[in-house]
């Protein structure tokens, strides 16, 4: 034993958590032991179902009643004076520990602020729950802490309601709530997952200051290896309720010990990986390729959503030009609200074009009726973002994949189309028996494969993929992206690949277009856009993206700070 300060602030010993469900008891955490040292950021990483969130929540005793917890979670107060085993605490004792010794930052800042109270009131409430603080003092503290987390005009904003703040600001307020109580430990559960990448960089910076300036120790739950490389000091990898590996961040990325960790790290897309593939594809193209008529031509494309109840119209796409050549993959990147999905939907005829011109497969779409567009439809495939909702829950996978064939008269019914359906399933590497299953019986990755099969049923010349992997775990994402690449090579369709993730787009696209608030700010090959961005927004976007390499990320962070 060296100095008392290095004793763990959180000591999890052989933690086991079981949930009661309709299908019987399910073990979510199976004997995990972990320690959080003072002043460190411990990242707990893993894919969905790994038990990382459940583990972190036991630190605050925040599990639902259906959970049964065994083992010990020993929590030390910030001054080191008291320790308590959260698992055994209840009622008032548990209440005293929460907020004072350990605070929590949640994934969805929008839902954790009570909509009917001002934010200052909500910060003050925590203070008043833990001591005899006058209303005036509590308010002064709230103003102070809001200022320190970077809310401008805190004296005024303290009286505003949550809906008057943007998503990033709400997350700052949630962090302010944790800081106001000066808790020794902050549990941050996917704190940036719901936020755009440029906002994410700001929040990560703020969390770093929580450690450096407020002396908090942080448990960071995340699935994003870039975030880990950016913020963590130490990493614990979990898989299916068990702890796979624990190491300091540099060691883990440089020399992972366990097979699972190695595979996990290998599946993370990295910037620059796509250059090789793009060159490869370019080399395979026949002569005269560049002279072919493009499949999509957008000229000064405008798409406006009319406002309701006297609110102004919302211009989602504002004067955008681009083309997609046959067999070419255009990657469309942007943050939420940039209009990237709207463009994809307009090409597929799901959203009306308001102005400019949009030619799809030689047909002008602007002002075109559904009947006239119908012949074009069978030449377009579409893959949706959320594999959970893109299948009719009452139809089998075979029904869904056969639908395009039946609709366009290539087959009478599902049974008639079954041979072709089996071929398609095989093409996306699903066993053909899966055709008889219902969508809810497939995992997310399997559903997204089936979705690809459906979109390819009519052998389209153009495929639109709208964030096809953003709802998937990183290892599943890697396999779906590989499959997409293989299929593209095999079928030779042109594609519009829409994503918020630069690294994912880089992996697949021949050219990348960057959208910002409805305008196209930059376009070029992956090497041009990622290697030497010209537009200020692209530069900021690129600098905000954390890369899964601690050393490189430290450099990038310095550049990002300079850009601000």
């Amino acid at each position, binding site marked *: 034993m060296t100095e008392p300060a290095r004793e763990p602030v959180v000591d999890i010993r052989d933690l086991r958590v079981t949930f009661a469900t309709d299908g019987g008891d399910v073990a979510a955490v199976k004997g995990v032991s972990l320690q959080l040292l003072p002043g460190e950021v411990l990242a707990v990483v893993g894919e969905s179902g790994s038990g990382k969130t459940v583990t972190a929540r036991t630190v605050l005793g*925040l599990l639902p009643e259906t959970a049964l917890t065994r083992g010990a979670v020993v929590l030390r107060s910030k001054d080191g004076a008291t320790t308590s085993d959260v698992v055994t605490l209840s009622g008032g004792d548990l209440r005293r520990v*929460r907020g004072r010794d350990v605070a*929590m930052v949640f994934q969805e800042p929008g839902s954790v602020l009570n909509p009917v109270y001002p934010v200052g009131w*909500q910060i003050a409430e925590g203070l008043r729950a833990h001591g005899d603080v006058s209303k005036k003092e509590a308010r002064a503290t709230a103003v102070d802490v809001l200022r320190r987390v970077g809310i401008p005009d805190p004296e005024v904003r303290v009286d505003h309601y949550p809906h008057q703040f*943007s*998503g990033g600001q709400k997350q700052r307020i949630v962090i302010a709530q944790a800081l106001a109580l000066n808790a020794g430990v902050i549990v941050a559960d996917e704190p940036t997952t719901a936020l755009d990448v440029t906002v994410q960089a*700001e929040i990560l910076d703020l969390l770093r200051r929580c450690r450096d300036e407020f002396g908090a120790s942080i448990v960071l739950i995340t699935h994003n290896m870039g975030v880990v490389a950016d913020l963590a000091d130490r990493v614990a990898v979990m898989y299916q309720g068990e702890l796979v590996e624990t190491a300091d961040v540099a060691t883990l990325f440089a020399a992972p010990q366990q097979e699972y960790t190695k595979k996990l790290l290998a599946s993370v897309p990295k910037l620059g990986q796509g250059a090789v593939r793009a060159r490869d594809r370019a080399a395979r193209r026949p002569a005269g390729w560049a002279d072919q008529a493009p499949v999509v031509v957008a000229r000064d494309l405008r798409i406006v959503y009319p406002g309701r109840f006297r609110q102004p119209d*919302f211009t989602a796409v504002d004067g955008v030009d681009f083309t997609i050549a046959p067999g070419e993959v255009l990657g469309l990147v942007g943050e939420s*609200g940039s209009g990237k999905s709207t463009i994809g939907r307009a090409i597929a005829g799901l959203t009306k074009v308001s102005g400019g011109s949009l030619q799809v497969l030689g047909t002008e779409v602007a002002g075109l009726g559904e009947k006239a567009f119908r012949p074009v439809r069978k030449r377009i495939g579409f893959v949706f973002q959320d594999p959970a909702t893109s299948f009719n829950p009452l139809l089998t996978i075979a029904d869904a994949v056969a639908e395009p064939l039946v609709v366009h008269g290539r087959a009478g019914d599902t049974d008639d189309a079954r041979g072709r359906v089996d071929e398609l399933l095989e093409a996306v590497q699903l066993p053909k028996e899966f055709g008889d299953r219902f969508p809810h019986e497939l995992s997310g990755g399997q559903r997204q494969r089936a979705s690809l099969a459906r979109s390819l049923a009519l052998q389209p010349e153009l495929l639109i993929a709208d964030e096809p992997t953003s709802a998937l775990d990183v290892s599943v994402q890697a396999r779906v992206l590989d499959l997409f690449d293989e299929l593209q090579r095999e079928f030779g369709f042109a594609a519009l690949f829409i994503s918020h993730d630069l690294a994912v787009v880089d992996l697949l696209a021949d050219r990348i277009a960057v959208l910002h608030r409805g305008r196209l700010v930059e376009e070029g090959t992956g090497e041009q856009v990622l290697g030497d961005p010209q537009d200020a927004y692209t530069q900021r976007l690129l600098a905000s993206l954390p890369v899964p390499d601690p050393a490189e990320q430290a450099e990038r962070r310095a550049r990002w700070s300079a850009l601000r």
Partner: protein
Amino acid sequence: MTTATQDPAPPAEDAPAGRRRRRGGGLGSYLLVRALLIIPTVFILVTTVFFLMRTTGDPITAALGGRLPADQLAERIREAGYDRPLLVQYLDYLGGLLRGDFGTTLSDRRPVTDVLVTYGAATLELTVYSMAVALLVGIPLGMVAARLRDRFPDAALRFFAIFCYATPVFFAGLLLKLVFSVWLGWLPVAGRVSTRGELQLTRGDTHTGIYLIDAISTGDGELVGEVLRYAVLPSLALGLLTAGVFLRLVRTNMIGTLGSGYVEAARSRGVAESRLVRKHAYRPALVPIITVIGLQIALVLSGAVLTETTFEWRGLGFQLGQYLQARDFVAVQGIVALLAVIVALTNFVVDVVAALIDPRVRYS
């Protein structure tokens, strides 16, 4: 951190200037739109009722057919103008409504508005009492049920709520009457006040028709007590029906808000459980309840018709029953149209109150 406000959000919600502009106009224009919606609502109901009632023929034949010789009947029909084209009658009727003329009853030849003035106060009094019963019983019990969810008190309260709903008001009324008036003799059987009391109440120059207010203004304590004793059973019968609805609604909403992210977040800050219920779960749960109170007005008015008939409480509902018996469809149509206006206005008021309570509406 100077560039803290760079969080990109859709421009519509990001522009502070726009937000400030809308803050003044938002609520105002919302209320305006909401107020304008009253007109089509009332129009649709009045029109529907008018044409539906006329598909059966003219009201005079309905009321007096078979009791008068054919020539007298035709004379009466011509006098009342029911021989004109239906569209002309309809426009005439609409014109009358705009002037506040809801028609004249056939059976006792009174303007429908006069019926409203005479009996409206009684219905209002009964409705207010029963709403008070419903809210005082329903909301606290709903909160208790939500807090003690899935335990015995919750089960008992839920059963009570379903029982309240499952018992028709008139049967509840008859049961209460049987037990408390006939068997125990504690409370009066029917009516709003005794004959002696009625004389006393209507003697003064100014009387509101709301007996409690009138009784208080006479300064006679005994009379006030009598008026209240007469009101107990009808208010309970009608109030418990709605109390069950509120109980279930409060319970469901509270369970929803108790499981919400912000309650969990507050719990993670060490806020006491009782405070979580009182402050965080209760208020957001209340906003939809206020909206539902508006919808309950319809239920309460339906119930009032039945309760008034059961207890011979001489209000609009009781009167409606009388006109129905007499097949006086002009009166029925008039009262129904009048109630349509009342329902639409009440819903508007309730929406305004809900808007004022919810900051998301207030400041958006």
